[in-house]
């Protein structure tokens, strides 16, 4: 049986005075913390994505002049940008959340590096799209977003396997404490919203369609589903926290209500006012951002509070998690924009 003490002990350190001048190979990697390397790789990949995405061409220019009415154009471009805001939020949430949690898990499995790199490139692609006022999609962005969607699904598989193999199988205990089963899906949501952003850019501005269905309606129903999924994840983890603070009920009540509003919006005739649903989306967006403050308070209530941040950021409520609600809600706003056929100014 290998025991810790069996491992070869380190060679005794030579005293500085007796060190002979010898040309030793320079070992750079030893001086750099592996997490720094990871961060550099992620940032580098993001930058590369940004540049590779280039500058997308406005639709119709190649054909010589605009051929669509400018109002419809405004709406799809704005909705696409908003969808990219959504995927930005989600990708950033995943980047920091998976970074924190996988660091906590000490990157026990190599695959645990994946979401950090993938969410970085997704973040870059999303930011790029968010700043792109033109219609017309980018192939690089499109591909990156699709990759994110796929990675999230694979991550879900990994997490589900991790839960099931533990003593007790798919019990509450393992759903609470092994790999969080729903978390990787946030990356899939980022990817899906990002892909939709590209599709909307390419769609007919006067009658935008997605896979043959009305773009606004189908997106509204889809984001409603995403809100419900995110609620389930938050519900599971807040149940683990025994809803010890009444505020913990907000993310399990408000988003389903907002999701219901979205579904109702999808049934309204085109052009009808969507004010209620829009307020619902803004409320969920604000909740996602406000949740960070609540989680920061939660960190303060851990042993040692913020003075012991190195432990409590990892073991306390995750700061980066709540904004994923905001991300999905922004996707919902884009859907409403498309249904209402007018730009939301904000």
């Amino acid at each position, binding site marked *: *049986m290998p*025991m*810790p*003490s069996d491992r070869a002990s380190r060679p005794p350190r030579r005293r500085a005075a007796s060190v002979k001048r010898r040309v030793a190979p320079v070992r750079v990697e030893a001086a750099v913390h592996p997490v720094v390397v990871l961060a550099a790789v992620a940032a580098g990949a993001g930058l590369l994505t940004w540049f590779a995405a280039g500058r997308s061409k406005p639709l119709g220019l190649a054909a010589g002049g605009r051929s669509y009415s400018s109002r419809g154009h405004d709406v799809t471009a704005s909705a696409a940008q908003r969808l990219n805001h959504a995927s930005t939020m989600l990708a950033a949430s995943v980047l920091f959340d998976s970074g924190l949690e996988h660091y906590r898990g000490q990157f026990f499995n190599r695959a645990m590096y994946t979401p950090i790199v993938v969410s970085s490139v997704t973040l870059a692609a999303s930011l790029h799209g968010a700043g792109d006022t033109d219609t017309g999609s980018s192939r690089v962005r499109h591909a990156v977003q699709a990759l994110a969607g796929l990675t999230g699904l694979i991550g879900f598989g990994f997490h589900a396997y991790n839960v099931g193999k*533990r*003593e*007790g199988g798919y019990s*509450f*205990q393992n759903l*609470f*404490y092994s790999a969080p089963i729903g978390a990787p899906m946030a990356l899939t949501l980022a990817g899906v919203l990002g892909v939709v952003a590209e599709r909307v850019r390419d769609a007919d501005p006067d009658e935008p369609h997605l896979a043959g269905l009305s773009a606004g309606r189908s997106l509204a129903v889809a984001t409603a589903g995403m809100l419900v999924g995110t609620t389930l994840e938050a519900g599971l983890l807040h*149940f*683990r*926290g*025994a809803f*010890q*603070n009444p505020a913990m009920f907000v993310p399990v009540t408000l988003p389903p209500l907002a999701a219901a509003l979205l579904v109702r919006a999808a049934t309204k005739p085109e052009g009808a006012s969507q004010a209620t649903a829009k307020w619902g989306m803004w409320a969920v967006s604000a909740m996602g951002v406000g949740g960070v403050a609540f989680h920061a*308070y*939660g960190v*303060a*209530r*851990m*042993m*040692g*509070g*913020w*003075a*012991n941040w190195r*432990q409590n950021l990892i*073991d306390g409520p995750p700061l980066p998690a709540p904004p994923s609600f905001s991300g999905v809600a922004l996707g919902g706003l884009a859907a409403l924009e498309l249904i209402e056929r007018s730009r939301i100014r904000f």
Partner: protein
Amino acid sequence: MRIPGLGNAADNPKHVTPGDDPEHHPRARDGRAPNVMRIGEWVPMRQHRDEEEVDFAIVGTGAGGGTLACRLAEGGLSVVAFDAGPYFRPLEDFASDESHQSKLYWTDERIVDGENPLQMGSNNSGKAVGGSTVHYAMVALRFRPEWFKTRTLMGYGADWPLDWREMWRYYDQVEDDLKISGPVNYPWGPYRRRYHRRAHEINAAAKVLARGAEAMGIGWTPTPLATVSAPHGDAPPCVYRGFCTLGCSTNAKQSVLVSYLPRALKAGAEIRDLAMVGRIETRNGRATGVHYFREGKWRFQRAKNVVVAGYAIETPRLLLNSANQEFPDGLANSSGLVGRNLMVQGNQAVWGVFDEEIRSYKGPPSLAISEHWNYDDKGHGPFAKDFFGGYSYMSQGPLPQLWANTQASAHGLWGEALVAEMQRYNHVAGLKVVSEYMPQERNRVTLADVKDQYGLPVARITYSWCDNDKALNRHALKFLREALSAAGGREVWDQGDDTCHLNGTARMGADPRTSVVDADCRSWDIPNLYVCDGSVFPTVGGVNPSLTIQAVALRTADRILARRR
């Protein structure tokens, strides 16, 4: 403005060790008591003069006394609670050092004899404000309903004068008060309300229990524990460092010191630390107050009612030491049962070595449990039951010094062999029972000729196993050996003689001839004298006792308050 929970850490580098010495100078005085939840802070405390006749004088502030003091004070009564031990501030006074923390134990002299003399101290009795709960292992289990009527329903022991359905309500209450962290669904016994905190993540030692139980085809579950898994007021969630049985320095653990006693103070109770009660005074068949030693001299506190809650050794000792002309055999002793029917619980263990690293000392010591043998009355095959009673068993997490001691004493290793064995400490896991021993009149607490530092006769503790106890031990060890081997344990060995918990020396009952107190914990002989602690148990069951002690205390408080109205 101070936001609760910010920076109250014991490991906060800014904090300094308190300058006072709680083991020699009382802290609860001058109208204030320590605020145990905040470094250096105090809370106001109502105080009474000795001559003032208070409603209740309570001896002992542990699971029984502390809980009762809280509820009586909240009910509007004037209460003074005495404890012989110090008033510790966990955030400041508790060191991560096994030797140092022995300051929590009752180590005053006691004499042990009988065929199986008990080991006293660290494993069974505390001396501190908050009692033994300051260093207990937090396992919070309910009795099996049938155990309240074992004589009638199962043919052994004695019936409790209590109804399990009523107890179920009080269990609900104490579980809520302590925010017990337990599984979403508890697999044994009748329906109970969901625990108020989710169970803790289980460590590798608990996974060993889980694997063993699954291999043996019986149920297991994460253990319900009195340490929070999510914040509760100023208490942060558990940090899984595993010092629980040596005093939790984070206050995650819901000992009486940090749960009921702060509430008691808020409701106007007075707590007197370093106050040893030596004798209860009576006149005309009623208790009139207590003699206690504090700050270098003996004093007398007048009281309308007296409650003894010193745990199953000190309670009978105080009742016997208080013998006077009116009650020459000791107080409340017309049945002759004060001090008799002392029950400990079996604490046998099996230990084994595993290929993988276990590090069993991480987290609270008993994170997984099986109560199978408390609920299966027959068993079958090699595990057919040939005895009364049952047992639960739990995973274990001994700290290094305790583990070295166990290896040296129970395993008989020394020198080179001991050193070699300690190298494998990180690879060891074990299973330990809490089992039901029978009440026997010959197992008892009497007074010895030896006197302690207060000049009071010390307790003589006589204890022997009966055949039923021995049969239970055999069954338990055999089963645990197989379970541990099935989980992958090698070189499995038995630790056959450990015991824990103390109960039963002033049993409750429905008949004054066969019990010391009634269902309300009031003594049959002296109407204003109560006993409210582990001593009142007629039987012990196969689970750790303190949740039941506290549920009984809550009930007693309700009964006392109801009678006043």
